[in-house]
């Protein structure tokens, strides 16, 4: 485990976080400390609890015990919208957008709260120049200008994934959680998409659950390995790759599989 930088509080800190569903304990004392600006990939075998961990951090469920801190402030007792207002945004594994709204409207919905418009019903959306300019900028950033007026449900899968990221970053959160952003994408789409993620998350703290090892080693400064609800390693990609415990638990077999697959192609 590394220690967080001394001057600032960690962007995300998990202290002995546990979560049980009924009798089954999914997260068993997870520890993690992510410094501001770090890009962390969370990897682990299926059922290790990666998505559950994201759900705990983003407030979808509360932990059974333990503490979760965002920039030093405890968030484990807060609901999702309170956590989001503190500067944490997440994307979903299955595209989770506003299907009957246009691409532009989706992005604008994503940033209204953070720009202070809240529940206003005495202002016209068309008059909110700052919000509209930012939504246009986001539209260009995720390269969907040509789909501005298309309803989200009529987008292709890859476009929906891009919009999912767009809605996530729209509010300008400083900590971004991406749950399998490239799931279901082809190889060329994935490469392009990773570039996009890198662009739109510049200067932000990034946590991403990812299966594709190419993506993991390409995108992340650090890798957290989650096995049976515990973070068994959290280090630079090189160190994790060399870690005997990780090799044994997980990575060895995955890397071997991927190398075999690539050799086979």
């Amino acid at each position, binding site marked *: 485990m590394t220690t967080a930088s001394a001057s600032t509080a960690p962007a995300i800190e998990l202290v002995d976080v546990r979560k049980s569903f009924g009798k089954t304990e999914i997260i068993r004392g997870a520890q993690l400390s992510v410094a501001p600006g770090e890009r962390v990939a969370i990897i682990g075998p299926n059922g290790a609890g990666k998505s559950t961990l994201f759900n705990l951090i983003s407030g979808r469920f509360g932990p059974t015990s333990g503490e979760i801190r965002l920039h030093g402030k405890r968030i484990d007792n807060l609901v999702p919208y309170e956590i*989001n207002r503190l500067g944490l945004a997440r994307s979903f594994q299955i595209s*989770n*957008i506003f299907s009957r709204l246009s691409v532009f409207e989706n992005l604008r919905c994503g940033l*209204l709260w953070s720009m202070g418009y809240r529940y206003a019903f005495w202002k*016209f959306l068309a008059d909110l120049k700052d919000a509209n300019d930012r939504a246009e900028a986001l539209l260009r950033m995720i390269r969907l200008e040509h789909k501005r007026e298309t309803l989200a449900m009529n987008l292709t899968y890859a476009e929906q994934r891009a919009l999912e990221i767009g*809605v996530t970053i729209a509010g300008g959160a400083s900590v971004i959680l991406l749950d399998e952003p490239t799931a279901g994408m082809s190889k060329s789409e994935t490469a392009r998409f990773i570039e996009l993620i890198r662009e739109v998350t510049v200067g932000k703290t990034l946590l991403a659950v990812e299966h594709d090892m190419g993506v993991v080693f390409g995108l992340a400064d650090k890798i957290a390995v989650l096995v049976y609800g515990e973070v068994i390693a959290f280090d630079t990609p090189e160190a994790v790759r060399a870690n005997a415990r990780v090799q044994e638990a997980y990575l060895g077999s995955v890397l071997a599989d991927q190398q075999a697959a690539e050799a086979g192609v």
Partner: protein
Amino acid sequence: MSTQTAGSLVAPPARSALTGRFLIWGGFAVLLAIAPLVFRSDFGITLLAQVMIAIVACLSYNMLLGQGGMLSFGHAVYTGLGTFVAVHAMVAIANNTMPIPTSLIPLVGGLAGVFFAVILGYVTTKKAGTPFAMITLGIGELVLAMALMIPEFFGGEGGISANRSAGKPFMGITFGPSIQVYYLLALYAFISTGAMFAFTRTPLGRMLNAVRDNPERVEFIGYSTQHVRYLSFIIAGLFAGISGGMAALNFEIATAEVVGSGRSGLYLLFTFLGGATFFFGPIIGAVLMVLGFALFSEVTQAWQLYLGLIFLFMVMYAPGGIASLIMMNLRVAAHKKLHRLWGWYAILFATAIVMLLGAAALIEMVYKLQLSSSSGTTLRYLGFTLDVASAASWLGALAVMVIGLVAFEAVRRRFAVVWGAIQSEIERDMTFKEPDVAAPTGGVAAAAEAEEGKP
């Protein structure tokens, strides 16, 4: 009203969109102003006044149903309580205990709507989806039971009544003559419609759509879905109450049934028929509601059986209501393909008429048998004499209906193929119009590749 949707379909330049909006709202105002000059009879003006009331009620209902995805079975609670409070206010004006002009009575109803929506809506909007619908049903029953239990306020079986012309005349306007009432109600309907349309263009209005589409995601972009629903429910309560106040002015009476589930069901039914997915849909529904009660009930006593039948057909074949049928055909017309459908519409219409003739004969015979059999067994139906005691009449009507149904379904299936082909042609046209899709095939993938090459 429909500029938003019409605009996005035919994509006119910004200036003509503005002109279009001005034309639509101006046209709406003119229509309201001249309607009583066309329908001059007392009956006509009474109907028009009721249409005004129904427009505000159905539009406010659609803030919940169409814009917020909230299926309410108890909207009459807010219109009805608005009516009761407004009638009490009218009584107070007549007794000189309330110094406000009669023309503000709908606003009194609106405040009552807000008051009750703040209290009852808090519980209601804690949940969404099916629990929300259940709670509205429960509150509807609760309020109806209260209405019968507290005669001091609700007036018991007979209700309470007031006299709208009892206030001080203002510039000769007493609100005695129904034409004066109509113009006041038309003014309220126009302003309320404008305000409710404006609401759809505000941050809260848009977030209400987001909550309808995906409540879960809304929580992760900083919004409390419960708060969005609650605030919108209160605003819908305001307009429901205004509609109730308008009804108080028009009818000068409030009885317990105005808060009942029957009334709530009608709002749901006609808002849906008119079309919940477009802002102007409920206006069509409101007109149909008033016409249904006033005119169709004259034509046949069994008109509500027809209403149920039409509702069934709409849910199955046109879930977007009449408004979406209009908008879909306008889209086809905008791409100059509507001429290919006229023939189909004619045949569909003809087969539907055959089916309706048979069904109507059956409905009338059932109605005769069940409800007015004391006056013999025969009835006149479109020049024919049907006899509910004869098997021939039943079999004949059934045969006509079945023939119509089979023919309609056969035509509808072929029509669906043609319709689908036209829709995909339109989609293709629109894709090709996009400037950055250069490659003839594989549109989006090609665009992605092209962009990848950019620095």
